């Protein structure tokens, strides 16, 4: 402190670090509360974020979908000629069709079939700019080949190149891998194949399944020319194209494919309620943990606080000390809590294939919650100090 030119004893710091072991426990306490909050908000966000990650990786500014497709679960394709119509507009640089189908995949080890999702496109189109796709373009051109997602659920069996098994009761050879992750609509994982192979598997799947052809596509990707006004183009396309399709921005707030998907999951599931409740409860657990720590500190230094008061320090000063302790605890507890949460996120992400993102915004929000938590506990713990009567303590 002398560096700042103020010669004051850093009472809050000394109080906290006085007993090293207790200090470590205190930090662990705050850290655990932080971990709990990170865990539950993380699950909530992961469930939402995972639903839109494929959408956000599509190489498009604008998408065209069937009007009925109000979420990725709805298997309604649209007429591909709408995509050709869109090409005539000024500002449209390119359009690519993406074909999607859910299909059964046989785990080559257990022989069990599991549903997976197939994403297919013309290999000449840069539809999904993933490194795995670029590296395997040549191999994907061969008949009955596909790429598998290394982050697909373990139920699909080995997720590596060289696997030969059955897809839609037809042989398939895995020639490479991508890293994408699962979501609710993708079943146990994603496969990528060429549009030619897509026809081989899905043009004629027998009486129970719909047949697919190039006449329809599931998602139409529109790439705009640099500098074009995307919103205006969306409006023009919506006006001009028939009512059987919906034209939207790919991502972003407002009228976008991503927002539509997020809204669907927000409205049709209780995810938000469940995890918000758990987060609020974690917050209270944190208050209790920090209160215990501060209270023990106050109790331990009871006579010292009384002495300070007897010396003429005001209640405000004592309040300041306890609040300082709360702030120090919130910072020092948050860091390990966050680091452990990071590990936990990675672990959970590997275990279930969902995306766990720790964005700066989420970190700041949770830090603010931690800070509030410590402040509330500090405010409760300090009451006892304030009512301290030196005469009583040394009575």
């Amino acid at each position, binding site marked *: 402190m002398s560096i700042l030119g103020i010669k004051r004893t850093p009472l809050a710091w000394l109080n906290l670090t006085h007993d090293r072991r207790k200090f470590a426990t205190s930090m662990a306490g705050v850290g655990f509360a932080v971990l709990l909050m990170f865990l539950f908000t993380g*699950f909530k966000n992961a469930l939402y974020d995972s639903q839109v990650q494929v959408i956000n990786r599509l190489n498009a500014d604008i998408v065209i979908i069937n009007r009925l497709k109000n979420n990725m679960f709805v298997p309604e394709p649209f007429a591909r000629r709408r995509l050709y119509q869109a090409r005539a507009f000024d500002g449209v640089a390119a359009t690519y069709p993406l074909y999607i189908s859910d299909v059964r995949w046989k785990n080559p080890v257990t022989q069990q079939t599991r549903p997976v999702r197939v994403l297919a496109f013309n290999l000449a189109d840069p539809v999904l700019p993933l490194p795995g796709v670029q590296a395997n373009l040549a191999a994907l051109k061969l008949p009955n080949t596909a790429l598998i997602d290394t982050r697909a659920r373990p139920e699909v069996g080995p997720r590596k190149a060289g696997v030969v098994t059955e897809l839609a009761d037809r042989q398939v050879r895995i020639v490479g891998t991508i890293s994408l992750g699962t979501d609710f609509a993708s079943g146990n994982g994603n496969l990528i194949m060429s549009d030619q192979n897509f026809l081989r598997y899905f043009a004629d799947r027998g009486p129970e399944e719909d047949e697919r052809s190039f006449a329809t596509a599931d998602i139409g990707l529109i790439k705009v020319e640099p500098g074009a006004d995307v919103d205006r183009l969306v409006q023009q396309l919506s006006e001009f194209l028939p009512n059987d399709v919906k034209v939207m921005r790919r991502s972003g707030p407002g009228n976008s494919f991503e927002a539509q998907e997020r809204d669907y999951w927000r409205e*049709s599931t209780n995810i938000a309620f*469940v995890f918000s409740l758990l987060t609020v409860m974690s917050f209270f657990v944190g208050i209790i943990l920090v209160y215990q720590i501060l209270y023990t500190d106050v*109790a331990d230094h009871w006579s010292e606080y009384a002495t300070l008061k007897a010396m003429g320090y005001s209640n405000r000063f004592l309040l300041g000390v306890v609040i300082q302790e709360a702030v120090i605890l919130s910072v020092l507890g948050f860091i390990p809590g966050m680091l452990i949460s990071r590990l936990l996120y990675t672990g959970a992400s590997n275990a279930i294939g969902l995306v766990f993102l720790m964005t700066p915004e989420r970190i700041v929000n949770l830090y603010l919650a931690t800070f509030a938590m410590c402040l509330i506990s500090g405010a409760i713990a300090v009451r006892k100090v304030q009512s301290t009567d030196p005469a009583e303590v040394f009575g």
Partner: protein
Amino acid sequence: MKRTPLAVLNLLHERTRLLVAIAGVAFAVLLIFMNLGFQGALLKTTVTFYDQIQADIFLTSPQSLEISTTKEFPRTRLYQAAGVAGVERVMPLYLESLLWRNPETRLSRAMFVFGVNPQDPVFAMPELQTAAARTILVQPDTVLIDRLSRADFGPQTVGLETEASRRRVIIGGQYTLGSGFAADGTLIMSDQNFVRFFTPRSFDQINLGLIQTSEGANVPAIAATLRQQLPADVQVMTRRDIIQNDLLYWLENTAIGFIFTLGVIVSFIVGTVIVYQILYTDIRDHLKEYATLKAMGYSGRYLFVVVLQEALILAVTGYIPGFIAAFGLYQLTFQATNLPIEMTLNRLILVFILTVIMCSLSGLISVRRAVTADPAEVF
């Protein structure tokens, strides 16, 4: 012999801290209850409708995963099963989903469809037991709709016409079933209508075979016979088996199992930390007294028992408010979300055992200091 209840007195000594300690344990208990409750409720929604299906034995394709992802198998297997002694009645169940258009918003959503022979008593819902219901079902393009379907499907007035998978459809009546995770809403239609809606599906390929056994029959024995006699292209499951199978599917194949189990584990650890803090502080505060006791000849074992007693008292006193709060939050959750979240006896016992383990564990960690207290050193 009257003994000083040392553990109780130690805890009661500092009232406020005791209250906070109890609150801490209670919150840990509450967190565990909520995690288990949410998991249980989400899983339960997926199997509730089995309660309404009147069958003792179920036939499915070995490739079926759970009710909403089934694979068809030949109806012949069901007729083969009908020949087994003790089988009273066999009924095919056709399953598929279609896009139901909300006539008001004109938006379509996926609806899960049960196709049944109107003469078969497949469902136990009272609305379906009447002759009137059967008359409605046999009419072309007429369906019954689940009252518990999501509001997004639109009005459910009888006689309402809308479009389902590009075909006109008329609501003939309603029933109460619920479908949870697997579907947003359900319909029941006759097998004739089912084939109309889902051409080119035929009557010969069924999704689920329902078998009713005669009064007092030995169901597991019949299931075993069926397993022996039917080819390997069908799976024979009793009611218990199939419910277990679906629950396991959702637990193991979706994130539900993982997420809430992790929630329980972390809550447990946090609870342990809270109790540890309390006991540790207590021991530190009373280190002199503990040392005195030791100097007086009390064994380390005695002190150990005292701390463990404190831990158990905290466990019990924390469990009760935690349980009560959880009960209240369960009600609140049910009102807010309609999730069938329920307190079961098993869960009460499980959480209690977890609480006791949690507190004892903290006790064990914190007691070392008291046990190793050397009177000579302390003074």
